[in-house]
């Protein structure tokens, strides 16, 4: 008789099962916490209807802000968070805390003789009463704006996450000095680094030149991945969903491609070999355009994917408050949970795609001429 002779689970496999189960519980409760953080202050506040309140809150989550607002409601006075410093330049440096904007009635702050006013979360130079003038068509505010170097929520989170990534990798690197076997944290990060090297860098750039670009590829991969993951937390951090950040990343890729390109790359753009001469004149402007469009597509892809994901999840959570029927609320909560799990995959996937396409562009920049022309 063949009973399941190996049914007796070893201690290790039992520990693994508990760990796996515990991890799943942690993951689901973490993802649910995003829904929980949607505070109950979304009740009918008199003038604003539910839908507009939801729209306002989604907007608030997507955009940058000058203070880190964790939870609670400003109007009810239960807000928990901390204000961030504001640094302005309009000929002289002004620094003050953003909480001062809330001390005066009109959001006007006076500093070293000039007055500033925060109007719709932008800072303008104004006079003592805080007057805002519109231009002729009544669309844009015509006040001057000082150059705004403030530490906003995005900048603050960026600095934190960069410090975290830096700390992780410097610890991992230090461990390798004495001991070639990975332990602890290195056990996760070594396969990831090898993944970036063997699946992204070497196939696209080639054995000869890939080492030059590995620094940037690793940085951008973990940077985007970590930031996307932090965007899923209930803290309301939305960094890669900000087009300026993705623009900066795509710009760096573009600059690296342009400045480390060899003659073959420029040859392929302007005077491509193997094509009749008349066609070359026609194709050259298109290739130049393509040179700019490729990083532009990188930027749009990352921005749109992450923003759209955030908007969808927050809309579904917002729907929880619109419906009264508990069955519908449960269904939408389940849908929101499911989408949050997919967003985790998207976080990784977008980082992978960005890095892979950057590697592809670097590869085309250092390509040696091949023989079929």
């Amino acid at each position: 008789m063949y009973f399941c002779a190996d049914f007796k689970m070893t201690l290790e496999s039992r520990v693994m099962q508990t760990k796996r189960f515990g991890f799943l519980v942690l993951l689901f409760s973490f993802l649910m916490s995003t829904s929980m953080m949607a505070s109950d202050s979304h009740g009918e506040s008199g003038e604003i209807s539910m839908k507009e309140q939801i729209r306002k809150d989604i907007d608030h989550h997507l955009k940058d802000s000058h203070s880190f607002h964790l939870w609670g409601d400003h109007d009810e006075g239960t807000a928990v968070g901390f204000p961030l410093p504001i640094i302005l330049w309009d000929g002289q440096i002004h620094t003050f805390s953003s909480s001062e904007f809330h001390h005066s009635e009109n959001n006007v702050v006076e500093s070293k003789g000039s007055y500033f006013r925060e109007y719709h979360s932008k800072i303008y130079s104004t006079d003592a009463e805080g007057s805002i003038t519109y231009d002729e068509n009544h669309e844009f505010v015509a006040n001057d704006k000082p150059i705004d170097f403030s530490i906003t929520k995005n900048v603050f989170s960026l600095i934190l996450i960069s410090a975290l990534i830096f700390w992780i990798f410097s610890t991992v690197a230090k461990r390798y000095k004495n001991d070639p076997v990975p332990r602890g944290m290195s056990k996760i990060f070594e396969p990831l680094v090898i993944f970036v090297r063997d699946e992204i860098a070497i196939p696209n750039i080639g054995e000869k030149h890939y080492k030059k670009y590995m620094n940037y590829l690793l940085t951008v991969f973990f940077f985007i991945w970590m930031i996307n993951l932090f965007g899923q937390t209930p803290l309301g951090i939305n960094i890669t969903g900000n087009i300026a950040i993705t623009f900066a990343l795509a710009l760096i890729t573009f600059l690296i491609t342009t400045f480390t390109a060899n003659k073959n790359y420029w040859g392929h753009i302007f005077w491509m070999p193997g094509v009749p001469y008349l066609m070359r004149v026609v194709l050259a402007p298109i290739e130049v355009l393509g040179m700019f469009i490729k990083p532009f597509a990188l930027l749009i892809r990352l921005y749109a994917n992450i923003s759209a994901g955030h908007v969808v999840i927050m809309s579904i959570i917002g729907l929880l408050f619109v419906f009264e029927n508990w069955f519908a609320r449960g269904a939408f909560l389940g849908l929101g949970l499911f989408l949050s799990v997919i967003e985790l995959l998207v976080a990784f996937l977008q980082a992978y795609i960005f890095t892979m396409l950057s590697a592809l562009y670097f590869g085309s920049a250092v390509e040696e001429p091949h023989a079929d022309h």
Partner: protein
Amino acid sequence: MEIPTIVGAGLIVIGVGIGIGRIGGSAMEAIARQPEASGKIQSAMIIAAALIEGIGFAALFAA
């Protein structure tokens, strides 16, 4: 949201759906023909799907 915007968004989603559907289909066929290459085919499929979705999202944002 005006009607042309909505119609445009619908067309974009149709385009993306057809594109990714075709990639998925041909990926499945290729895996059926040669199961050993399924790892490579899967990665190529994901990459192509992400590229198409990139265009789709960009167009959705413009619309």
